[in-house]
């Protein structure tokens, strides 16, 4: 059972790597969805023997939400806002890979330091931390608003896995609360992106800085 869980953890990390380098927006959305579904399998493997019916239902709901509803919403938002096909990263491919690797190394160091109960599944804590870092990476180094939403989703996936590591028994209540937040967030962001794009004809966050009072070049004159 644990071997399977470990494989899933490795897969999640590889998905992080893939997320940090993927150039296509649609591919990125799908990767996030896959990550959510894969992470959703994890609680089913947690206990011994067959999982409870309640766990199965919750897991199925989460997988449906992350694997079908969110990607559908996001793809729709992408099409409606005319966000284009590319992710438009601010840093190069090698830098992204190295940052992602560095995040993983840092989280394995951090994971070995944190006083957490032993889950028996190797790499679950570093993987969750690395996933959170990857989410931050997506938020900070991509120029489009929609990738920021994706970043939040990846962070949520990370928190979900982290929750599994923390409360092997009942992560679902915590998870549901977070999920609700994120659901609202995605909804709001989807609408917001749509409106921003209508107002400004683009959803490039770099352009949002035009709204600031601070003007490049005027400062210090």
């Amino acid at each position, binding site marked *: 059972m644990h*071997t399977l869980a*470990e*494989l899933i953890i*490795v897969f999640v*990390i*590889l998905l992080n*790597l893939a997320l940090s*380098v993927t150039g296509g927006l649609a591919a990125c959305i799908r990767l996030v969805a896959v990550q959510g579904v894969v992470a959703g399998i994890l609680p089913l493997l947690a206990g011994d023997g067959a999982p409870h019916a309640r766990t199965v239902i919750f897991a199925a709901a989460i997988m449906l939400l992350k694997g079908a509803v969110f990607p559908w919403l996001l793809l729709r938002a992408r099409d409606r806002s005319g966000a284009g096909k590319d992710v438009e990263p601010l840093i190069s*491919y*090698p830098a992204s*890979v*190295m940052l*992602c*690797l560095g995040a*993983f*190394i840092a989280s*394995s160091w951090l994971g*070995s330091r944190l006083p957490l109960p032993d889950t028996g599944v*190797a*790499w679950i804590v*570093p993987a969750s931390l690395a996933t959170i870092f990857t989410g931050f990476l997506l938020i900070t180094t991509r120029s489009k608003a929609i990738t920021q939403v994706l970043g939040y989703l990846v962070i949520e996936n990370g928190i979900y896995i982290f929750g599994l590591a923390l409360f092997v028994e009942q992560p679902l209540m915590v998870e549901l609360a977070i999920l609700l937040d994120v659901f609202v967030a995605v909804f709001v962001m989807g609408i917001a992106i749509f409106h921003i794009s209508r107002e400004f004809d683009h959803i490039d966050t770099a352009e949002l800085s035009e709204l600031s009072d601070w003007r490049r070049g005027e400062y210090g004159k």
Partner: protein
Amino acid sequence: MEIVKPLLQFLAAALLAPLLPGVINRVKAFFAGRKGRPLLQLYYDLAKLLRKTPVYSRTTTWVFRAGPLLGAAALVTALALLPFAGRPSFLSFDGDFIFLLYLLGLARFATVLAALDTGSAFEGMGASREMQFAVFAEPAFFMGLASLARVTGQTSLAGMFGALTGGTWSTAAPVLALLTASFFLVLLAENSRVPADDPDTHLELTMIHEVMVLDHSGPDLAYILYGAALKLWLFAALIGSTVLPRHSGSWAGDSALFLLMMFGLAAAVGVVESVIARLRLTKVPYMLITAFAFSALALIFQMGR
């Protein structure tokens, strides 16, 4: 007794290596719906080239003539280090894979210098690209070997592949899978196969490895082609021994399975070539960096266990 088997293994590898490109070409032909070249085409080519009289450019010196010779000699020596179906070859000592790595380096160095000796812009271009990719491929390859050493606790090729069993795959499956992926990417790049380079292209500007050897002819070209086949065999054998760690105890059975694995890998390369387009030149380092990331991840997984 113990000299016969290594000798047989060595001869098998040395003789069968030119089959691999033939297998790749047949698979590609199958995908393209063509009849394709004969399986033994490379043997025919080698026999023909060895009979031919070479042409040398007036610009060249002895470096140009020595390049193919050194390259082929280095690869044959590397073959003498290479385990066959997890069994040691002639030479096996602690750290022999480092020697192997630098023998590949010697082959590359000799080829690059021979290319620069022609004074041709195109061959210089190929040489420059070859060196550029090597800078990214070597750390990836090194990290892969390092994690293999860490998984098995051994520091020689024969020791590593000897200690690798089916049990290792069940305990360290992610590590070995990542390693295999990384080695496969390095194989594609180092042997100038499709996502990195196209061996069938005939436009000098887009060629990498092939453009470096444009001026070679006759026996020199035969040496180069043979060396390239050996290099492909070498990388395929590393992957094959990682993927196929079974030791049934029967030498013949193991060897047959290993050979089957080699041709299977060649077929896999052929499939990749048929279904994937070539990467843009500037993206090839990215592929190798990905390979590096895979082997680095494998090592981290193994070290933090």
